[in-house]
């Protein structure tokens, strides 16, 4: 089936759902089903909706149908020595491009290269009225109209169903190396912040509770010189380590305890949360395994001027994302209705009230 025919099929389903006010549960590779609230609804399978539509390595742009396996895209890019610089977590073999963009998640390179939303250039989508819309495009700079492609990124399918996505891609660094250094968390954090202030070719830094891991990316010479400013031993299988971190396959993540993700200013030192902590993103992302109540954890995040997400092993009776209030919440409700007036697209997946 052609991409157009597949788009039409999805559009027909959404149009019918709009007319009959039938909630839809959008289902891609199902690899991130755990993320956000569990919902009921008519299953809309977008898995078979796939394929790279256009890839122009010298323009640094790829456009693919949303159901395209993420792996397939990464392999195509690797053939031209390019990559998705936001290192999207797959969380399973069946992960799709659409799911990566709808969840908006980014891997360890995020603080140095940018997040998923930073690389989104354009989208084709179907809104909750069954209308096929096209925003942005395949060019790097585009300020015509509101940036709805980036707004859709991370909206968990609640504003529209992605049909096609255009992304900026980047060359893979010529060389990468990872250094490790045994340090307590506070000293490791201080080092991460310190490295971040220097013109070093950093591409990831984290602390697993025992060791500070620092990844350098660039030309051979650049790395050689940078290694002089960063203490530590070279890790043999650095690539594997960052892969496992991105995919949450490190021992830290092997637990049934609620896993919290705190997004905070990188220099946050005081978080009174009981639980094992893994610091990523140079300090800006903290993974915490904690049984403390949600309200306490969220209050800690707010005090630090950040927010907390119950990432895994949550209870569906609770909110997964930091609740919104006041005018900000009103704006979210208004936007939801602006895209999906009958609330049929993944209703309550992000927040229990819309």
């Amino acid at each position, binding site marked *: 089936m052609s991409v157009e025919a597949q788009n039409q099929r999805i559009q027909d389903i959404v149009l019918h759902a709009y007319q009959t006010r039938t909630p839809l549960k959008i289902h891609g590779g199902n690899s991130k089903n755990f993320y956000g609230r569990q919902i009921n609804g008519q299953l809309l399978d977008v898995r078979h909706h796939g394929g790279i539509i256009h890839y122009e390595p010298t323009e640094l742009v790829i456009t693919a149908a949303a159901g395209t396996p993420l792996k397939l895209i990464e392999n195509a890019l690797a053939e031209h020595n390019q990559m998705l610089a936001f290192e999207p977590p797959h969380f399973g073999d069946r992960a799709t491009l659409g799911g990566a963009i709808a969840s908006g998640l980014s891997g360890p390179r995020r603080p140095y290269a940018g997040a998923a939303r930073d690389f989104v250039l354009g989208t084709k989508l179907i809104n909750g009225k069954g209308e096929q819309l096209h925003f942005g495009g395949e060019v790097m700079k585009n300020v015509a109209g509101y940036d709805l492609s980036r707004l859709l990124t991370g909206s968990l399918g609640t504003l529209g169903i992605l049909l096609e996505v255009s992304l900026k891609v980047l060359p893979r660094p010529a060389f990468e190396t990872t250094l490790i250094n045994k340090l307590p968390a506070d000293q490791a954090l201080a080092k991460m912040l310190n490295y971040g202030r220097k013109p070093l070719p950093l591409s990831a830094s984290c602390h697993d509770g025992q060791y500070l891991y620092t990844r350098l990316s660039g030309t051979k010479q650049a790395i050689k010189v940078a290694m002089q400013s960063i203490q530590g031993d070279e890790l043999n299988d650095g690539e594997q380590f960052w892969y496992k971190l991105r995919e949450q396959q490190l021992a830290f993540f092997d637990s049934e305890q609620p896993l919290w993700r705190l997004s905070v200013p990188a220099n946050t030192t005081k978080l009174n949360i009981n639980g094992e902590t893994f610091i990523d993103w140079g300090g800006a992302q903290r993974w915490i395994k904690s049984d403390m109540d949600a309200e306490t954890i969220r209050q800690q995040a707010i005090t630090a001027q*950040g927010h907390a997400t119950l990432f895994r092993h949550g209870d569906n009776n609770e909110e997964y994302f930091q609740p919104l209030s006041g005018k900000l919440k009103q704006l979210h409700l208004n936007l939801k209705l*602006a895209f999906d007036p009958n609330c049929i697209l993944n209703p309550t997946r992000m927040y229990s009230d819309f």
Partner: protein
Amino acid sequence: MVAKIHKVNKRRSPFVRQLRRILPRASVLFDSEDTRPYECDGLSAYRELPWVVALPDTIEQVQAIMRLCHAEQIPVIARGAGTGLSGGALPQDGSLLLSLAKFKQIIELDPVARTARVQPGVRNLAISEAVKQHGLYYAPDPSSQIACTIGGNVAENAGGVHCLKYGLTVHNIQQLIIITMDGERVTIGGGGLDSPGYDLLALLTGSEGLLGIIVEVTVKLLPLPERAQVILAAFDDIEKAGNAVADIIAHGIIPAGLEMMDRYAIQAAEAFVHAGYPEDAEAILLCELDGINEEVSEQILIVHSLLQKSGATELRTAKDNTERELMWKGRKAAFPAIGRLSPDYYCMDGTIPRKQLATVLKRINEWSKEYNLPVANVFHAGDGNLHPLILYDANKPGELERTEEFGGKILELCIEVGGTISGEHGVGIEKIDQMCVQFQALELKQFHAVKHAFDPESLLNPGKAVPTLHRCAELGAMHVHHGQLPHPELERF
């Protein structure tokens, strides 16, 4: 029309009285001699004397003004430094022009977290100057960075010569405080790298004052690179220059800046600043590499050899920082340099897939002859953002109209080849009609629905950035393409 003007004028005195309860007398302007400086922004071909200008200096005042305007249903047009090039801050009769020029404080610098919390009226360059002592800078560098302010940068999603590597405004900000049309204060984004809910930070960036008034911006700062080095390459053919850019990128190098100028722009710049550009070249490329010293040395060699292979007729590497700055000076002064050659010029801002460059420039040259209007081309070659500058004389009857028609054709060509009508200057009032070509009715309706979510009465910067469907329908009658009306679903008037 006369009745409308009369009605508008009648409302002014009571409105001014109410504003004066919020602001000191000197901060409310309405006499034409006081409001004249606000009659246009950087797009000076469009002028309109403001009805009333307000110059608040606290967030509470902005809130009170917005509540008043909301209650009185007076439209509000935000203005920063007024350097915008698309008429986004063009005043309108019966509307309040809200100047944020007094919000000039850098509120907080955090060199450890690498952020700066600033008021919207802080100049772009002032941020980098303030943080230089910490070895940091703010990356987006629009060529107006000496004068333009960060609030306007956010409203337009400003770019600059370094955005291929370091991104646009949207990639370099972390938090905004906005005041909505009904006077409520909302924090968008947060202290971390992301925030819960929808990505309103991305939505607000580049929204051209249609969704809220920006009263505070937290920007991200980057460490100053250890070294920056620039190579100048001359070409006897513009297509070869375009291919050289593709070769550099295909080789896995992302230069900090990658700029192209055509013959006309080279000669204008050379005559103005004597940067030492080869005046007989059809195109020059300026390629800047930055990073740590050894990395730059390595990459310069690679780029040098790539440029040689792609047929550069001359290659020059800046020997020192003085020469590097001189090479850039010619590029940064390209607009005023062209301004010296002509009474007026009209700057376009399309973005195209880079491989279409030769096709687009060829068509522009043909039209240039047809319209008898010279064009100089300055090109952010790395990211495909093309600035053709059309030279004209506004005092010659009909010349502005011909220029606008020519410019409109260029923008439509950008869309045709898969690009966009605006890369970094915004739509404003200038490109509002081309929006009808770039977007279909359904997309425009979605834009209006988003606008409605923030500003249901359409009081924020009305008539800018997103055209009404009726405007497009009426325009469609003039631009019939292959006999098809662009918006057949609409009633015709």
